[in-house]
């Protein structure tokens, strides 16, 4: 190891993965889309006669073997795609009441394997510079006011993204901090994987979802 970090960085060559379709990472089953049939005792009622609800699922594996994970990471929904953010997309993160894993997982999209910066995705330190707010965690009383103020501070039209089961449905620990309808994009997972997060954000921006 020399003291010249810049050269060390270059010597390691490009570490970023070209193709961000998660299917190539065979270990990543939880979370992913779940398929199956039959009666199961789900702790969060994510399985009902209407089928499997990704926004409620905490991916606890209790429904095995009636239901099995497919590895499909496309477990998100977005209201529409807006090409205006194709070049750059700034997000402001709000932790309403997380366990910490949604926070680290959204940060991991900036690890060299994914390098979301190269896709034009950046985290801002203030909601005034943000194009969208990412809400994580369950409802907590004292975070309601800061959350409201952050949403008001984003230049209009403010896009609100719900990240993780807690934000979307409350999961097993509480209730969701915002009504489901407030979210422009809903990203499922407990926590959502970096693949799901990047694919959802890229679709919001009307770009290829595999990072290429």
């Amino acid at each position: 190891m020399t003291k010249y970090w810049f050269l060390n960085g270059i010597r390691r060559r490009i570490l970023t993965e070209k193709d961000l379709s998660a299917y190539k990472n065979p270990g990543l089953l939880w979370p992913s889309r779940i398929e199956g049939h039959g009666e199961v005792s789900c702790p969060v009622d994510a399985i009902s006669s209407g089928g499997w609800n990704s926004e409620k699922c905490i991916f606890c594996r209790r429904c095995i073997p009636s239901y099995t994970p497919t590895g499909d990471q496309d477990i998100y929904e977005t209201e529409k795609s807006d090409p205006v953010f194709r070049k750059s997309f700034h997000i402001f993160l709000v932790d309403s009441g997380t366990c910490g894993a949604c926070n680290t997982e959204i940060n991991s999209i900036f690890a060299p394997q994914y390098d979301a910066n190269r896709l034009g995705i950046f985290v801002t330190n203030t909601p005034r510079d943000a194009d969208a707010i990412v809400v994580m965690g369950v409802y907590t009383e004292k975070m309601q006011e800061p959350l409201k103020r952050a949403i008001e501070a984003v230049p209009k039209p403010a896009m609100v993204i719900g990240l993780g089961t807690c934000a979307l449905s409350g999961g097993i620990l509480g209730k969701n901090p915002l009504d489901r309808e407030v979210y422009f994009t809903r990203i499922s997972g407990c926590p959502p994987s970096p693949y799901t997060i990047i694919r959802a954000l890229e679709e919001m921006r009307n770009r290829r979802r595999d990072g290429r």
Partner: protein
Amino acid sequence: MRCFDIGGKVGPFLGESQRYIIFGKTIMPEHPLESPVIRMPPSKKAGEFQLTYGPLAGGMLESVTLKFITPGEIIRGVGVEDKFKAREIKVSGRTIPDAILMIERLNGFHAASHSIAFSMAVEEAIGIKVPEEILKARMAMLELERIRSHLHVVANLAEADSFAVPSKRLSYLSEKVTRLISRTSGHRYFFGSIFPGGVFFSNRDKLSDLSSIGKEFNSIYGGLLSSKIFLSRLKGNGILQGEKIIGPAGRAAGISNDARLHSGCLPFGKTGLREITYADGDAYARFRVRSDEILESIRVIENLDLPAEIDGKKQQVSFDGPSKGAAIVESPSGPIFYYVEVEDGLIHLIDYSFPSPFNISYFSRSMKGKVFTDFQFNWESYGIWISESSAVIS
């Protein structure tokens, strides 16, 4: 009790819960001290003002408010308001399978530590004896979690110094370990893989990436140790000394307190685990303890003789257990202790001690007399999790 005797002070101080003061081998039913978190800053003197940072502050991973009292540059005191995101987690009255789903979400980044400590306490209460191969798998899981968590702290220290290349290379390694965790446990944060009576564990690829991760970390570590600018930010920053300091912060102040060796809960003694201690008690010593522990954890896992596969099948429950149990594990930030009482298959009572409240108090203490540029390095060096310190568990 399997892990503890009641009464006396045998072993180092490892924490305190509502009912007990915890030592390596004993728990003492004494009324504990007040919460260690220093939430309020000292009152202002003439010429001083309060600078409030948070709860949604750029650069902080979780929601927290810091209140600095300062006459301008020197920080005379800091209060940490960690309750903004406080979640109320109602475990009592829940079945054991539901309770473990809540416990693993107390601090998702240290979910293995929480789930293993809680599962062992429950196993004692309901009379489950787990085979050695499950204990070994759990030890490997704890060490994988420690490696990732320490990499995260060291990466944050490098980032606080705007040291982009090592910071990114460390986050690359951290993601590699996360993928290894995912292949080993089925989930990137161990959720759903650890429960009373068993684990889901696969060692099919023989954790083969670990030695290359260790080699690469060693080279980055060597580079950081030769960077005068980086070291000058850490040396002498946030000095903490005392007798009752838990976790890596204590080991950085020369205290032998590693619950892996001082408690008999898991057979770490057989692995030849070497306890890492440094003397200076500053952010540099905490960085050294964590970095050395990364390499030590890799060595421990490689020597564990792990089973190839454990499919998560439940173990036999005898129900002639004492209906109460306690256990402790050394999480990456310090000891996690659970005491549970179980009645008719439901959690009747839960009592606990976590490291984050202690680490917050250490941070507040060690910020006195420092300047604002010291803050980020000092904060990161403790590995504080607000999710853990703020949760209200009933």
